[in-house]
């Protein structure tokens, strides 16, 4: 009886105490593993300041396990995160039923690129990202190649042949570090594909993309693009091309074993980690016979909020704080080395490739990202093996063009 008198009040106190302050919790799932550490550190600081626990999950890097797949598993399990990243229109369509309308949020006025569908804002731009062909300025200088001339196919072909002939003298293993294995197929079927979709066209011009989506193939444009792909594959290190993973591809460039790298400014943290201090910047793609003086810049990734989240105000505040607090700005620019998509952020990233992207963007010399207007299934199941067949030498350029044409014509409804 004595124990009962002592025990029950304790239980009640604990129970009431727990009820009085239910622990608030939000989950954020994103697909940039290179910023995982910085994001988790910032989330920890934000959690303590706002008394809401933030769990960060980062998925990505190889094609086997990617964010899209993880989200589908979460959705089926009833475990959808509160905030998650999407990459464009097709991604948005997959989750359209559960994305929260964010029209009216404060940060919309401070960015030029919120994700909008039918006039309503659904996505918070994560960062401005871009890619062209990254080059090692020191190696190019030694080889006597002027990067400012590299903006069309003929110039690249001559430069590649020249550098290839001087490989031993320059101390490099291959001219370009390119990956085309099935695991790294996002490099070919997403990024390189975009050259076919938007290189040389004014920003926001969707004509090439829409034609291909409707099954109409511009043979001349495809043929010039195939020349470019052939150039990439011919002068790449075959081991990295056919079996290399992300670390192998980026590492070859960082350690000075390749003069060019087929990746974007998101490799800045990897460069910092590898202590690669040589001068580097982006040059335009040479996927056309005409000069295409610009690189691909966009805010490709957006955070959306789950309509069914139990903690929408906390999720909204997390996003708003990224833009309007010093800690948030510092995380975005200094720790994660991302280019902010917001006008009010005064900090500038220190990574050389990010600085290069900002320079191209400031000059207005940019082309859009259109690859995510094609479904994940089309890019992964249909296009990836075609690129891989060409990279391993199983098919020649003519057959590659033929297969790509058939693939796009198959989209005709």
């Amino acid at each position, binding site marked *: 009886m004595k124990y009962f008198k002592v025990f029950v009040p304790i239980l009640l106190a604990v129970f009431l105490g727990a009820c009085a302050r239910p622990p608030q919790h939000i989950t954020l799932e994103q697909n940039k593993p290179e910023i995982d550490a910085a994001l988790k550190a910032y989330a920890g600081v934000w959690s303590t300041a706002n008394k809401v626990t933030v769990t960060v999950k980062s998925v990505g890097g*190889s*094609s*086997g*396990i990617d964010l*899209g*797949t993880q989200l*589908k*598993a979460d*959705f*089926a399990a009833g475990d959808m995160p509160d905030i998650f990243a999407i990459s464009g229109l097709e991604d948005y*369509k*997959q*989750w*359209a*039923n*559960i994305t929260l309308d964010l029209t009216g949020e404060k940060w919309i006025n401070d960015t030029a690129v919120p994700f909008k569908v039918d006039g309503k804002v659904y996505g918070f731009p994560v960062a401005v990202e871009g890619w062209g062909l990254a080059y090692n300025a020191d190696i190019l200088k030694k080889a006597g190649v002027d990067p400012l001339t590299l903006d069309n196919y003929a110039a690249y072909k001559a430069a590649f042949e020249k550098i290839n002939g001087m490989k031993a003298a320059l101390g490099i293993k291959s001219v370009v570090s390119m990956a085309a*294995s*099935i*695991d790294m197929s996002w490099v070919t079927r997403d990024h390189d594909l975009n050259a076919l979709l938007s290189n040389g066209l004014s920003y926001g011009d969707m004509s090439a993309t829409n034609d291909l989506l409707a099954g109409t193939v511009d043979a001349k444009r495809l043929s010039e693009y195939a020349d470019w792909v052939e150039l990439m594959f011919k002068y790449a*290190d*075959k*081991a990295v*091309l*056919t*079996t*290399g993973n992300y670390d*192998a591809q980026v590492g070859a460039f960082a350690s000075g074993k390749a003069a060019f790298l087929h990746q974007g400014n998101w490799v800045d943290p990897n460069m910092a980690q590898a202590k690669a201090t040589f001068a580097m910047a982006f040059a335009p793609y040479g996927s056309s016979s005409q000069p295409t003086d610009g690189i691909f810049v966009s805010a490709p990734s957006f955070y959306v909020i789950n309509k069914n989240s139990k903690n929408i105000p906390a999720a909204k505040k997390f996003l708003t704080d990224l833009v309007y607090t010093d800690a948030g700005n510092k995380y975005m620019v200094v720790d994660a080395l991302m280019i902010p998509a917001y006008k009010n952020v005064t900090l500038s990233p220190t990574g050389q490739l990010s600085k290069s992207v900002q320079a191209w963007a400031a000059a207005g010399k940019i082309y859009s990202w259109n690859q995510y207007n094609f*479904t*994940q*299934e089309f890019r*992964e*199941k249909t296009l*990836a*093996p*075609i690129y*891989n*067949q060409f990279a*391993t030498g*199983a*098919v020649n350029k003519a057959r590659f063009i033929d*297969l790509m044409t058939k693939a796009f014509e198959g989209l005709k409804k």
Partner: protein
Amino acid sequence: MRKAKHPAIFWLFLAPVLFAFVVVIVIPFVLGAYYSFTNWSATARVGDALKLVGLANYAGILRDPSFTYSFIITVVYTLLNMIAINIVSFGLAMLVTQKLFGRNVYRAGFFVPNLIGGLILGYVWQFIFDNAVPSLGTFLGFASWADPANLLLAHNTTALLAMVVVGTWQYAGYIMVIYVAAIETIPQELIEAAQIDGASTFRRLRSITLPMIRQALTVTLFITLVNSFKQFDVNVSLTGGGPSAMFLGQPIYGTQLLAMNIYNQGLKSDDMAGGQARAVVFFLVLVIISVIEVSVNKKKEVEL
């Protein structure tokens, strides 16, 4: 003969296992079979109401060359893997049943790879095939080992062999334990009698050891058959679907086994119902093959 009545305590002991079996295997199986006749996708698209579509998903399987290809290479992989694992593990079993110094250490050592998860095994061996072997070759002076064209994982035929190597490394120890248990039940008098009669080692193996472990052979063949057919972890981590291949005029993933094909259809192609249909077909095929294999082996067993 009177059949013993099962007391309540019998069912009480069985209850937790039965519960787990029903909840984790039976219910999802039935639900899955139901979903294979619908248009279930894995996402929250607008206008995505669940409705029955009859046999449309099954018809889709016939139209997809990648499923046929996955089926063929899964059968090839299973055959190769079964042969490799059983030969290697039987050899190891014979080895560790001799009077060797430290043979218990060997038994434990050979079993350890089975304890490491398939994903980690795949990544470790990917590193070995892609990085360690070329580096070793350069170090030892065999430049051909570092030639990208000679990398095992660069071609889909050799990548399949690489998967057999990893699969064997994963299961040889586990199957070895079963063979060791069987070998140790062979009465020593039989072996000694044969030795006195002047039978060679090979003759003893063929006429005494192999027939006496027939029961174990049923078990090991069944385990290796089913596990090879269901291989997924090593597939994802070692080759990721591997270098591409050309099949019926279409470029497809070259080392995508059946389980991975189902996974990709469900999660990458936004088509859970289609993946489910493939899973049902997978189940039926595996059941038929296993039943045939076990009944054939059962007939050949020797009763002591």
